[in-house]
């Protein structure tokens, strides 16, 4: 198989060995900035609400990884499906799901996407082709392969995108899925969000092969390492992978090299990495700052950027208000939605 040209692997923080990815138009830059900011502010607010006790259970924040879902979404078309694991708030917002519905689900209220019955890790939207939100590490890989199977069965040209982390990459069903996907040439993009830590275990301590783009090698699935902190690089790689899948050539693996600023969950003591490591990436690599700096360099006014900030903050604040005002589910909801 003629695999597409692979870009040279680079760690976040490394010099860009391959030069810059294709430039965005101003409209694309602004859209990317706005969508990433929405996720950043939303997650900050979620963290705040968690601290206040308004959100319970597990809450996994996506801060730092925003360029991955936003860039990928820019490469997709309506009808393409998205599925991910438990760090899913960013994916839902990128898919166009309503911030109120997501935040109200986090607070366990009736206006949440799952009527308050799913919580942070389990939300779905048939309308936006978002298939969850899955709490079992790696399960979404087989399920996402099944979404691609359905596209193939129906003979349409949609692709499915299955997101999972460096941690999930060591689950057995991932490779069972890789095998079937290549065997049956299923249109699925496996996006491995390598944020360097599976909970608190770094990739070098958990993975025999840390180049995740090669994880499909024994199945002949092409893969590419991508600077997941640069939304333009993500979009470019996404375009290439989508074209490969839509052309009927089978699955494609994208290793997104990214970084999670916050802990694994809200109760993460963060003993496994230094404050300096986090700070360095925030300063040098932040996906949002990269876009903001490019826009400023292109003479976009501070005013225009502030207007985006304000719009995003308004959405997030409204969602927090809604999520705290909205009533809890009616007790009768305990017994609904078990069978249909």
């Amino acid at each position: 198989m003629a695999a597409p040209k692979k870009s040279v692997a680079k760690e976040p923080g490394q010099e860009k060995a391959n030069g810059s990815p294709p430039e965005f138009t101003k409209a694309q830059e602004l859209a990317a900035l706005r969508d990433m900011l929405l996720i950043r502010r939303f997650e900050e607010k979620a963290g705040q609400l968690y601290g206040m006790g308004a959100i319970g259970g597990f809450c996994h924040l996506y801060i730092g990884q925003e360029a991955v879902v936003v860039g990928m979404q820019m490469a997709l078309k309506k009808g393409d499906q998205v599925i991910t694991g438990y760090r899913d708030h960013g994916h839902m917002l990128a898919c166009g799901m309503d911030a109120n519905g997501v935040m109200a689900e986090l607070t366990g209220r009736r206006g949440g996407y799952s009527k308050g019955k799913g919580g942070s890790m389990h939300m779905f939207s048939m309308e936006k082709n978002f298939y969850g939100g899955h709490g079992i590490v790696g399960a979404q890989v087989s399920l996402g392969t099944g979404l691609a199977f359905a596209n193939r069965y129906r003979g349409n040209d949609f692709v499915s995108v299955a997101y999972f982390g460096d941690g999930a990459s060591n689950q057995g069903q991932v490779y069972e899925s890789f095998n079937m996907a290549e065997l049956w040439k299923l249109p699925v993009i496996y996006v491995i969000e390598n944020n360097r830590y599976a909970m608190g275990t770094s990739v070098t301590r958990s993975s025999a092969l840390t180049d995740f783009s090669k994880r499909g090698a024994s199945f002949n699935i092409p893969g590419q390492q991508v600077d997941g902190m640069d939304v333009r690089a993500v979009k470019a790689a996404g375009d290439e992978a989508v074209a490969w899948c839509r052309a009927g050539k089978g699955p494609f693996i994208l290793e997104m090299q990214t970084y999670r600023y916050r802990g694994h969950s809200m109760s993460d003591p963060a003993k496994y990495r230094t404050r300096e490591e986090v700070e360095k990436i925030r300063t040098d690599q932040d996906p949002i700052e990269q876009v903001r700096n490019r826009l400023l360099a292109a003479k976009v006014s501070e005013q225009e950027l502030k207007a985006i900030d304000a719009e995003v903050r308004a959405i997030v604040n409204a969602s927090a208000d809604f999520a705290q005002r909205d009533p809890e589910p009616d007790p009768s909801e305990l017994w609904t939605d078990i069978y249909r």
Partner: protein
Amino acid sequence: MPIQVLMPALSPTMEKGNLAKWLKKEGETIKSGDVIAEIETDKATMEVEATDEGTLGKILIPEGTADVAVNTPIATILADGESAADLGKASAPAQAAKAAESAPPAEAKAEAPQPKAEKAPAAPPAAVTEPDPEVPAGTEMITQTIREALRDAMAEEMRRDPDVFIMGEEVAEYQGAYKVTQGLLQEFGARRVIDTPITEHGFAGVGVGASMTGLKPIVEFMTFNFAMQAIDQIINSAAKTLYMSGGQMGCSIVFRGPNGAAARVAAQHSQDYSAWYSQIPGLKVIAPFSAADYKGLLKAAIRDPNPVIFLENEVLYGHTGEVPKLDDYVIPIGKARIVRSGKDVTLISWSNGMTYALKAADELAKEGIEAEVIDLRTLRPMDTETIVNSVKKTGRAVTVEEGWQQSGVGAEIAARIMEHAFDYLDAPVARVSGKDVPMPYAANLEKLALPSVAEVVAAAKAVSYR
């Protein structure tokens, strides 16, 4: 001494087969490894190879003979220097003789726990058999094996709905490991009859993912023992998604395959998962006994918008029964059936457990105890009403299952009877079940590990204080 060639058993559950063809004639020389005959079972046609050398002395079972029992002598091989005059002295080869000793074909099998084909639906006297309420009077019935009933159910549903497809190991080109999917590939093609790699966890997840988009997969597990590899996808993904999505997204999917003890395959291949799956809200669990129920309930399962666990029984696959010849024979999920009415004691079972229950009812009738036999058919949702109404009438109940007792389905039934009919009980509910051990391989131990008709009879008498 001339050597007898015996009818071979070609699968763990084979009891008889047809001698389709002789490929060697009397007087021909035979070398070890030569194919001498073709045997047809209800699953497949297999070649019989000679394991001894010599001359085919006499063919004892002519080709075209049907229903030849395993271990019946089918031919005699003469060794060097022997002649037709020696034929009368024939003896079975050592190994076969040993097999015959532990399981003589005729006598021991009659008492063996595995039912025989002709007895499977255990036609009790017509007077005490309840008519099937789902079948209009006067409906023409056809006789078919449970294997065929399952195949027809899938084929009919696949013709009816293009979103239905089947995937699993060996379902297509091999025609099904147990030949349940025979002919489906030929009719529906490789797009809808899909051979998977040996990858239960993965393909269960692929099936669930496809069903989330509205397709209606039938996922065949070669046996439910292997579905333990996939149980996370079945429970965490299939059963819970509707609830976790607030009713937005569910899975219409059937997981089916043989469950429970087969015969002589030991602990890892002989386990009853009735209790496991029936505990899970979000799943429906079906475990039929009769051929008609296998067909009507599988059709219902495929149409059901929820994830359904359809537990089959390998021992029953070859058994025949009457199946109504109706264009669309669909049995509602969740309804038990009283297959034999009686006033003295209620026997409650499902799947192959019914074999013991029905035979026990026959035995009890000889002693003047009229047992009412309920075939649960669906384990979740469980038809508590039918059980309770019967127990209110009889005042006594015995559950019969091949699975283990602890946290078993029998335990659940007993609890429901206690909750809903305590004041009607004249004796504590008794449970007959598989023994609390992994399934042993040795024939005698295996028999001991399974329930028996005698145990059911004894339990029924005990609750009747007789």
